[in-house]
């Protein structure tokens, strides 16, 4: 049993963690205010959509899915990290995961809430949702989605809550003279935890069962999400590996989201004692592993049909690989996959510091070259640009695109010594790139296929045969991301974002069993 300090149940670093729960600053209020403002703006957009119908969006007969379902797949994917970090690493005995487990579980909870909302937003008549339950067709993957996401949300909520019970009991004692709402909340949620042997026995059983149960549920959820596309006969979606492809992408983006959250909370709540550089390095290894698996699936998914270029898939594949959607697709592969993996691996090479000594590899001129070429590219791309009258705009645009790419490589190499000195910064940049790439990749999976159906789009009114998201969709998307962040931040103000009882004796000589339920606090 954990030895309690006389007169105080918490150590210094635990006090710092608890302080983060009630300490607020101007920047905190500014952040929350900004997020609330974005959510309100999104609600205004949604009210427009409810009033005037989906006509205010870019969705049309052929484009029944767009940004909303992109958000849905993205959020559900990110939610997988809870199962990965908590269940898989818990079962495999990876002790280093303890300080970041709750962050991952909270990401799962918040992203599932936002993800589950998206199909409702995508419905022109959400009041008809009841029809799905009353007249749902069992052979429809849409119904499978409803069932699996509901099941996963219930399981994830339990999985987040159950390991928190000993911590909530600690908070109940800590806030015995605190605000009434905290006292009531912690008293109810602590379930009368006193650390009795019987309670520990029940807690251990529940956590063990949940850890095993949540893994197949999480995998099945994203597999089913992939099936809403994979079970249809459409170019790009008619794939046998969509299930594992989606699951690997989900774990990759989810692990990256945890890295971003770790860095944000470490900086904002001063959790350097809990979340060390080693945690970023280990998470980096995890992201690399998942990224390589995801890259393999991506290669298999696109190379197989691209080699054959069957007639009915040619339009779609050409648009994705070399046509209209190619910039987005290649950004996801280079910016969202290759660059993050290189960022996490190359700085560890021992010769990297020597790069700083080379005059050509200074970051500033490289950055200036990238900025100048990118600025020129934007300028030339703007319609009506004066450059159009002087030169061949298409050729100039291609030249500038290559210039940005070459200068980008130069900048990347020049920054490697800096990233070696700052592994946290490297991990954060990589994880942010992964998540941006993950969102765009979902878009590239959904929209091009709708653009190239087997039955060609005939005689569509102008603008109907192409998808352009409107401000309503972008507003609701921004509101969903803001909602995710707000839930996450508010959660960290009500519950400790790092598990107290699971991290209590880390580093102690007798820490072999530390963090196990048997060592949960007795109060």
């Amino acid at each position, binding site marked *: 049993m954990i030895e309690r300090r006389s007169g105080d149940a918490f150590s210094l670093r635990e006090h710092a963690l608890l302080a983060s729960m009630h300490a607020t600053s101007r920047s905190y209020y500014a952040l929350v205010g900004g997020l609330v403002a974005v959510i309100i703006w999104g609600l205004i957009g949604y009210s427009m959509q409810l009033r005037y119908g989906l006509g205010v969006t870019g969705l049309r007969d052929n484009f029944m899915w767009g940004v909303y379902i992109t958000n849905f797949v993205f959020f559900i994917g990110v939610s997988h990290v809870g199962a990965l970090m908590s269940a898989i690493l818990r079962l495999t005995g990876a002790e280093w995961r303890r300080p970041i487990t709750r962050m991952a579980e909270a990401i799962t909870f918040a992203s599932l809430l936002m993800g589950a909302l998206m199909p409702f937003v995508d419905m022109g008549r959400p009041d008809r949702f009841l029809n799905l339950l*009353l007249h749902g067709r*069992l052979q429809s993957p849409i119904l499978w989605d409803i069932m699996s996401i509901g099941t996963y949300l*219930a399981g994830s909520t*339990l999985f987040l809550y*159950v390991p928190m019970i000993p911590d909530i009991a600690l908070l109940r004692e800590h806030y015995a003279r605190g605000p009434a709402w905290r006292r009531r909340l912690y008293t109810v949620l602590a379930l009368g935890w006193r650390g009795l*042997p*019987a309670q520990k026995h*029940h807690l251990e059983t*529940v956590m063990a069962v949940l850890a095993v149960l949540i893994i197949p549920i999480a995998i099945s959820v994203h597999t089913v999400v992939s099936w809403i596309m994979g079970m249809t006969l459409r170019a790009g979606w008619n794939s046998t590996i969509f299930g594992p492809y989606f699951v690997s992408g989900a774990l990759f983006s989810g692990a990256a989201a945890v890295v971003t959250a770790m860095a944000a909370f470490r900086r904002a709540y001063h959790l350097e004692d809990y979340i060390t550089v080693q945690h970023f390095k280990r998470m980096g290894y995890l992201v690399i592993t998942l990224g390589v698996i995801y890259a393999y699936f991506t290669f298999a998914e696109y190379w197989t049909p691209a080699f054959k270029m069957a007639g009915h898939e040619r339009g779609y594949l050409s648009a994705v690989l070399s046509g209209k959607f190619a910039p987005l697709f290649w950004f996801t592969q280079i910016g969202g996959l290759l660059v993050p993996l290189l960022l996490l691996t190359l700085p560890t090479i021992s010769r990297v510091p020597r790069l700083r000594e080379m005059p050509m590899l200074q970051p500033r001129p490289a950055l200036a070259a990238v900025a100048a070429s990118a600025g020129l590219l934007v300028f030339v791309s703007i319609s009506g640009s004066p450059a159009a009258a002087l030169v061949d705009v298409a050729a100039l645009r291609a030249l500038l695109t290559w210039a940005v790419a070459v200068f980008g490589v130069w900048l990347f190499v020049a920054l490697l010594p800096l990233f070696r000195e700052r592994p946290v910064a490297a991990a954060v940049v990589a994880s942010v790139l992964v998540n941006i790439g993950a969102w765009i990749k979902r878009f590239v999976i959904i929209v091009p296929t709708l653009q190239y159906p087997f039955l060609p789009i005939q005689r569509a009114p102008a603008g109907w045969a192409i998808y352009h998201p409107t401000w309503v969709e972008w507003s609701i998307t921004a509101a969903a991301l803001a909602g995710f962040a707000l839930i996450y931040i508010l959660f960290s103000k009500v519950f400790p974002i790092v598990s107290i009882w699971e991290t209590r004796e880390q580093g102690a000589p007798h820490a072999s069993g530390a963090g196990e339920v048997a060592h949960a606090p007795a109060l």
Partner: protein
Amino acid sequence: MRRRSRWAVAGWLMPILLVGVAGAAAAGTPAKVGLTRQTGADGLARITAVVTDADGKPVGGTAVTFRVKTAFGWLTVAEVESRSDGTAVIVLPPTSLHAEINADAGEGGVGTLAVSVARPEPTVRPGRGMLGTLSLQPGLISPYPPPQILFVALILGGIWTTYAYLVFLLARLRRAGRGGVGRHAPDA
């Protein structure tokens, strides 16, 4: 003399032959397409186009193009050659969303007619009206074979039963904290 008389006969016959050929040609030109709809015992809607000429005689061997009206305009769904009795048939599923269909045969839009195959109005409207009709019937009585239902019920039922068991354990945890009877594990 005999030669002249031959030419005279030929001169009389030529206009008659020309009129006959023209008449025969006119008889084979689609002039009208009639559309009818029948619902078979299988519930499928059969759209029959009858191609006739100007005299109302059936025209066989002509291509009949069926189109349905969509939000984008008329969408070609089938091209069927008319049989000797002038009929060409396509089959639409009963749940077809097509509200209007037309068929034409020949060029120049000859003989285009339309027939409505709109779905019947739903008896249950969304919203409050549907709440009044809440019943377990649509959900539980299903056309799907029992193994499918059983398979899904087994998986989902198993998971949710496990959840319920875990909640039960949490209730016991709470009860133990209150000093109630609980199965005590050996102290770790």
